């Protein structure tokens, strides 16, 4: 009974969102995923409009990266669906989803370490080629043209990200900030409609953060992408995101503009804990009380 109510509510919420944002670039609807008995993500819903810049925040271990993995097909959701430009992509392979138009960066950088910087970008750009193995081996005119186009576009991408001077270096030898830039360049090379950035400024200094911030805003216009951003740097998120979703323990606890989210008591609680009378040190909660609560639920 309660389940039915919740579904009806979710459906109504979903319809509302669809009607306000005409044809979102990315639409996640009530995505859920459990690992064994642990609910990693429950009923995650998001409608990212074309050219939107949304944020996804939450305390450590809240399930943000798991959401990215669900959206990009690394994990298969137990329930819910994902629409990329109206096409259902949940349950598809990550490579299919990438070709359908969603690219990502990784929180724990995953570059092709032994390859040069430009080859990292070229590899991703290769997704948009049409020539197969046979054309490659005989170097048909189409293949030659495509390889030229790959190099041309990759160089432009390196230029936008400001790492042209490192193009022949091995990716694994780059300084940390440039690795993050290369991750973004590589993701953009796949010509995405939606770009997922997983902590793009983690480990960067103030100047680098500032550069990255203007870069992210620039990318939207230059590449016509909608961006979903995971970031722990609240200053950055509050500054540039149009809408923010806050999750904790896999559950969406708030959604709205930066201002709305900042004032939301549930968000403050998730980040700072519950203010408990005058006791500055959190005490263990009384066992009988929580048992009762569980029995009621």
């Amino acid at each position: 009974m309660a389940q039915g109510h919740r579904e009806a509510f979710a459906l109504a919420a979903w319809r509302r969102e669809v009607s306000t944002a005409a044809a979102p670039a990315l639409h996640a609807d009530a995505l859920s995923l459990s690992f064994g008995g642990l609910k990693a993500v429950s009923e995650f819903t998001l409608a990212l409009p074309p050219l939107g810049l949304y944020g996804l925040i939450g305390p450590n271990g809240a399930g943000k990266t798991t959401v990215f993995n669900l959206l990009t097909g690394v994990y298969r959701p137990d329930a819910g669906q994902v629409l990329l430009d109206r096409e259902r992509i949940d349950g598809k392979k990550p490579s299919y989803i990438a070709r359908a138009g969603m690219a990502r960066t990784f929180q724990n950088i995953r570059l092709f370490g032994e390859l040069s910087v430009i080859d990292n970008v070229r590899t991703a750009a290769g997704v948009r080629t049409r020539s197969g193995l046979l054309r490659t081996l005989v170097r048909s005119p189409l293949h030659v043209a495509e390889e030229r186009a790959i190099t041309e576009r990759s160089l432009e991408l390196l230029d936008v990200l400001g790492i042209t001077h490192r193009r022949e270096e091995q990716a694994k030898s780059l300084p940390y900030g440039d690795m993050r830039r290369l991750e973004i360049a590589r993701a953009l090379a796949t010509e995405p409609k939606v770009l997922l950035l997983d902590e793009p400024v983690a480990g960067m200094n103030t100047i680098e953060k500032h550069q990255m911030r203007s870069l992210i805003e620039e990318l939207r216009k230059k590449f016509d992408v909608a961006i979903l951003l995971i970031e722990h740097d609240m200053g950055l998120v509050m500054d540039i995101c149009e809408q923010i979703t806050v999750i904790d323990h896999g559950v969406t606890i708030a959604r709205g503009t930066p201002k709305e989210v900042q004032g939301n008591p549930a968000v403050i609680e998730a980040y700072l804990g519950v203010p408990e009378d005058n006791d500055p040190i959190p005490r263990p909660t009384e066992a009988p009380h929580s048992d009762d609560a569980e029995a009621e639920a």
Partner: protein
Amino acid sequence: MKSLQDRVSALRPNPIAAAGLSLAPFVAAVALAFVMDAAIGPAVGATWTKILLDVGIAIVLAGSLNVVNGYAGQFSIGHAGFMLVGAYAAAWLTFYGSIHWFDTKDTVGGFMGNGQLLFLAGCLLGGVIASVFGIIVGLPSLRLRGDYLAIVTLGFGEIVRVLGQITARQPKNIAVIQDQSMAALANKLGGAEGFSQIPGYTRLFFVYAFAFILLILIYRLKYSSKGRALLAVRENEIAAEAMGVDTTRAKVVAFVFSAFFAGIGGALYAHQVGAIDPKELGFQKSIDLVIIVVIGGMGSITGIVLGATILVVLPEVFREFSDYRMIVYALALILVMILRPQGIMGVQELWELPLWRKVTAKLSRSQHGGAK
């Protein structure tokens, strides 16, 4: 920013020039192979011709293995299995085919005569059948990696060897053979005794034509988006998938391509030795090929050529040490692994080495200076 496909039409090469650039290397490869056969072979004598044949076949086998082990990073130690499949298929066609169509067990015709055409067909058949087996081995590799895949490929090599050993006896009487259809002869591959009296069609021309063509193809593969996709699978499979590389497909393609040339290598080998002994093409042979790839440098084309040359020539040069030569050989391997664990060339090519760049830069500068 302009998308890739929007740029393509503006960047199309002149079709005539493109056709030339596409075909010229193949023509040069065949011409060079012909020169090796017609001039270099007679000049160096029978012993060195045999060594050159061994080197060429080793290049075909190790070069093809390199696509799986070096590019795609899938550790296969069953390459001799593909070789054996190709050898059997080709030998079946040339031995029984000669008897059926030419009424003889000997080689027939001169350069590009009927016999050699039959042999060429046998090589291609060996390649095609081996690549079918490549699909069969490629499929489990989708789920396995590292040591686990190595064991599967090892098992594959052993299965092929054992299957070869339990085939029926090879009839050798011409009349008896002519009584049976080619299809009926398909399982009469000699069993544990081996398949013998294979006509000796292998010569420098065929070996080096295939070797050079393979080198051209793997060069083109390496410097293309298909090849980079394989390298991406080796470097980071999760990231490769996320960037749109269908890793499943890439791995199967690598196995199929690799098996095709391993099959051809096996066919060349069988028609050089004149017999197939399944015991000879077992685990040890696979390991020999892996050693060439590792010593030369995984993923390096020039490394493979160097590795194949050194590891084939070395035991021949040390022949005077007789029984001790394998110790010398093993010591040489150990030394290389201590001094250059990444192989002689590492992942680089000759033309990517700093020394090579310096020399070519100096040469072009001095030419430029001389012109002034």
